[in-house]
């Protein structure tokens, strides 16, 4: 394996024009490098621009300034190496579960028979083999999320971007999904950027935790999570090192959360 980083952001800045015409800076001067096969969690106060960082890497949006490299190449449009799991439901409601998982390979020109075989394989791995004929509205929120995971993994992405994927799920389901994600990811060797507001989740999953500042987002501090793998979410939470890390990272994150909250209060006044 060569040592080209999977993702490299240098001085990336993204400004939007708001509907009222004002310029809003979502991301400012952001430097971040993700190595191949690394799992990076990004935490930060709500609305600080974490998600924007992901859309820059995915190619859905272009940076206003700075550079975004994927495997050493500047991002131009959507890169086929990238997979993206969204916060909201993004499975196609008019397609069956199987057809949803087949969508990626079919879009990319894989013959139907092969796409079906690959889709069935991934449905099996997320435990939904028996539900392939159902429509998304017939499934629970957690099952729909598993369809979304299968839909993304079936494309074999070298880079996996996840935007608070489990935030809409209840706590128990979220823990199960986290474990399932680690299991699925272990076999692939892909690099993951996992955006979340849940520090527990971030530490349990990641190799490194990136703390973002209050918006406009930039990297504040990066912490290395030196907990041994394979991990299971419930077990790793009880380790003393986990608690130690939590305290360290929260000291850094809490400050940004406070700034965001004070700004909100100032605006409301």
């Amino acid at each position: 394996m060569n040592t080209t980083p999977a993702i490299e952001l240098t001085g990336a800045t993204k400004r939007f024009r708001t509907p009222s015409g004002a310029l809003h800076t979502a991301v400012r001067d952001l430097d971040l490098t993700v190595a191949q096969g690394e799992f990076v969690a990004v935490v930060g106060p709500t609305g600080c621009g974490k998600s924007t960082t992901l859309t820059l890497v995915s190619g859905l949006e272009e940076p206003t300034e700075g550079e975004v490299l994927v495997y050493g190449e500047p991002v131009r449009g959507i890169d086929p190496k990238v997979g993206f799991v969204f916060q909201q439901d993004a499975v196609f409601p008019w397609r069956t579960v199987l057809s949803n998982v087949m969508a990626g390979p079919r879009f990319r020109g894989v013959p139907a028979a092969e796409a079906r075989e690959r889709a069935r394989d991934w449905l099996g791995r997320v435990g939904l083999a028996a539900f392939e004929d159902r429509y998304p509205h017939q499934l629970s929120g957690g099952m729909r999320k598993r369809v979304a995971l299968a839909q993304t993994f079936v494309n074999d992405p070298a880079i996996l971007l996840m935007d608070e994927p489990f935030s809409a799920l209840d706590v128990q389901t979220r823990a199960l999904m986290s474990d399932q994600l680690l299991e699925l990811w272990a076999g692939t060797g892909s690099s993951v950027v996992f955006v979340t507001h849940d520090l527990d989740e971030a530490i349990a999953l990641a190799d490194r935790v990136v703390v973002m500042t209050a918006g406009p987002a930039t990297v504040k501090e990066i912490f290395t999570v030196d907990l041994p793998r394979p991990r299971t979410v419930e077990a790793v939470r009880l380790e003393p090192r986990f608690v130690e890390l939590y305290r360290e990272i929260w000291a850094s994150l809490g400050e940004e959360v406070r700034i965001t909250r004070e700004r909100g209060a100032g605006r409301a006044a």
Partner: protein
Amino acid sequence: MPLETASAVAGKPPAAAPVSRTEARERAARNRKLTVYGARVAVLLAFLGLWEVCARTEVIDPFNFSQPSRIWDQIWQWVTHGTAQGSLGEQIGYTLYEALTGWVIGVIGGVLLGIALGRIRFLADVFGPYIKVLNAIPRIVLAPIFLIWFGLGPASKVASAVVLVFFPVFFNAFQGAREVDRNLVANARILGADNRKVTLQVVIPAATTWIFTSLHVSFGFALIGAIVGEYIGATKGLGLLVAAAQGTFNAAGVYAAMTILAVVALLTEGLLTFAEKKLFRWKPADAGDGR
């Protein structure tokens, strides 16, 4: 649950109470349905009966307002002996043919243009104002112009049906294409769909709900277009029946044609609902379905 406690105390088997209660509930639901249907029929009979009685006792002028028995006679005469323009089936066939052709053309045009303008910002910016202006015209006044352009044959009726159908379908398709969940589009693009595939496999399926809403309304419009066109000038059709009956002061003929039209419209509406149910299996059932 005082009832349940009471039956348990009385020493009845515990399973009996819920079963009989389910049965009772089912019976109540059935009875309610029957009552509703019965009431509906009663309303219709009361209305027709009152009309008939008022006309016979000359409370209302039967020459102007006609009466149900005469309308029925008129329909029966048309069915058995045909109309002055030919058999009744032929008239219905003509009107349906014109309405359907106009509807299909209007729907295809409306959907294609709606999706295209909804997807391609440039087109929407260029054509937007023109479409608004055209939509502001009361399009039914175009029927006489079409008569001049296309003559007395079906073409002029098809044209007026098309202009009536096109706009509601267009606006719904446009709106539908605009309001597609951005997450779905982003997801499809990440999964590898190009623009064409996004349009065909994401935007169009997502917009079908919107489009289908307009199909219901617009089939009614197609019928209006065909009838008005025929009324103004035609050689065949239900609209011509209305015009001819009116020309001979035959009020019963006007009502009879209206009745036939209503039946035809209801039947086609039923077919459309059936097709919609087949097409939208992926949607969660409405809460209102259990009515």
